[in-house]
């Protein structure tokens, strides 16, 4: 009999299961818990967008679209990027509509990495970056960030992790899980660092619209940055469209053309209904976005205030919808804190370690939940902290 071979590739076997998964199962068994562990908006997609999706279905638009996306949406995205972030792209050659920002990250890495190429990934970071880099055949070079620098990655630390085989830098500001943003000066330093080493930048700017203090600075917003950046954006966060699975990548034509090739073999095209609805999202939702942003900002202030009051020191998160307080004053690890808080107070937060080793000592609290629930969760958390000794 032939010797049985492992049925799952070693590359996949070695991927660590998401740190979120285990916690998800704990929380799932406790439906009455207040969850601050949710990485998606509590708002529902604005009605005008849902209505556009319904209309698209009514007209029977249920077929494939061109690989890179439908023309009117590509044009709207190009105009939007120009209007909001001052970066201009040719909709015919420099944009591709993807299945969420997630697919854009995956496709970007698979498009640009040679086997064993290094990818610098500041962490704590979104859970998919390291696995996607590994699955694309690359090496994930994780770079720690710290609260001393408001979780903004430092060029010195990048330089230390860099080696000759490093091909790309994968950044995300505003950041999930920390809520950190990268102001223009810092962004320019990162771009310069990459340019000096002829590296590409994959910049996940999915939370760009959710910036509360000063304007968002895109990695592509400088001439040097633009020619080496794959800018990733999407509709999930600001338009509350997570379930539609729609994002995009913008970049130099040679890279985007190659990405369209990978994208077309992987998924053919992005969902037609979602694409048609997204046109309405870009054309008619500025007011709704403003309203959501204003509300997130109010919750952000309340959460930040309460966390600091209860003795969990928290740097000011200026973007996304997360606060990332330190729990070190309690003497508990991130996991212990999250588990005990769930058990004893029925409040779910995510241990910082789910997002990388330098998340130890922190927990992620999402304020994408209603104000009354946030206030109640903060009360319970304060009780817990004072009990364990903050």
């Amino acid at each position, binding site marked *: 009999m032939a010797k049985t071979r492992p049925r799952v590739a070693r590359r996949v076997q070695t991927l660590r299961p998401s740190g979120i998964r285990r916690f*998800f199962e704990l929380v799932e068994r406790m439906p009455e818990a207040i969850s601050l562990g949710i990485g998606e908006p509590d708002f529902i997609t604005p009605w005008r967008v849902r209505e556009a999706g319904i209309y698209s279905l009514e007209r029977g638009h249920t077929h494939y679209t061109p690989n890179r996306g439908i023309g009117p949406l590509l044009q709207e995205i190009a105009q939007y990027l120009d209007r909001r972030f001052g970066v201009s792209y040719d909709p015919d050659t420099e944009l591709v509509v993807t299945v969420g920002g997630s697919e854009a990250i995956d496709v970007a890495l698979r498009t640009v990495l040679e086997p064993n190429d290094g990818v610098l990934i500041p962490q704590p970071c979104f859970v998919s970056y390291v696995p996607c880099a590994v699955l694309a055949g690359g090496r994930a070079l994780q770079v720690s960030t710290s609260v001393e620098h408001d979780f903004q990655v430092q060029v010195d630390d990048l330089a230390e992790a860099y080696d000759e085989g490093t091909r790309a830098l994968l950044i995300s500001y505003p950041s999930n899980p920390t809520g950190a943003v990268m102001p223009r000066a810092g962004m320019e330093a990162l771009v310069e660092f990459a340019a000096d080493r002829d590296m590409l930048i994959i910049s996940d700017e999915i939370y760009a619209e959710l910036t509360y203090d000063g304007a968002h600075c895109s990695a592509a917003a400088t001439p040097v940055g633009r020619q080496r950046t794959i800018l990733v954006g999407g509709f999930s966060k600001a338009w509350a469209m997570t379930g539609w699975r729609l994002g995009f990548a913008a970049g130099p034509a040679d890279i985007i053309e190659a990405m369209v090739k990978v994208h077309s073999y992987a998924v053919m095209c992005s969902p037609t209904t979602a694409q048609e609805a997204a046109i309405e999202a870009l054309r008619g939702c500025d007011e709704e976005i403003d309203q959501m942003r204003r509300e997130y900002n109010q919750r952000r202030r309340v959460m930040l205030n309460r966390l600091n009051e209860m003795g969990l020191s928290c740097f000011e998160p200026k973007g996304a919808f997360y606060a990332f307080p330190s729990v070190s004053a309690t003497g508990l690890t991130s996991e212990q804190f999250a588990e005990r808080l769930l058990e004893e107070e029925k409040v779910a937060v995510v241990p910082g370690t789910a997002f990388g080793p330098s998340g130890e000592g922190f927990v992620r609290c999402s304020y994408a939940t209603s104000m009354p629930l946030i206030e109640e969760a903060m009360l319970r958390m304060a009780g817990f902290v004072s009990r364990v000794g903050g």
Partner: protein
Amino acid sequence: MEEILQLLSEDARLTDAQIAERTGISEAEAKDAVAKLEKDKVIRRYKTVIDWERAGIEHVFGFIEVRCAPERGVGFDAVAERIMEFPEVHSLYLMSGAYDFLVVIQGGNMRDVAYFVAEKLAPLDHVVGTATHFVLRRYKVDGDVMVERAQAKRLPVTP
């Protein structure tokens, strides 16, 4: 200021401290701002949104279209003043189009409204015709959805 008004329009019971925390100003500043808005009559008063049906209290809503032949030299205002004095009148609007005034009636039962129209409104000088529409069900009132709908669910923990 706009943000404070928006907050209070959603929840009139917010304290100065809550307004301050949410908008990032001091409590004293919030208190002063609200006091000024009240003094300037930007905030006219604080009310409660009540679901009368749920309370089991009969509370009829009606819309009455009123056509009139306005008084020479005084126009619609004189007629409006007579109509709005009735306590049954919840709101009163001068309209363009097929009729002149829209009278919104709130409270009491159908008989009360019928009596009001027949005995008070229709006989008014200058009123030449009325058409009364009763509300059968209130779905959304002043921005508040009044019917129960299942909440969309999210996964309890997501990256």
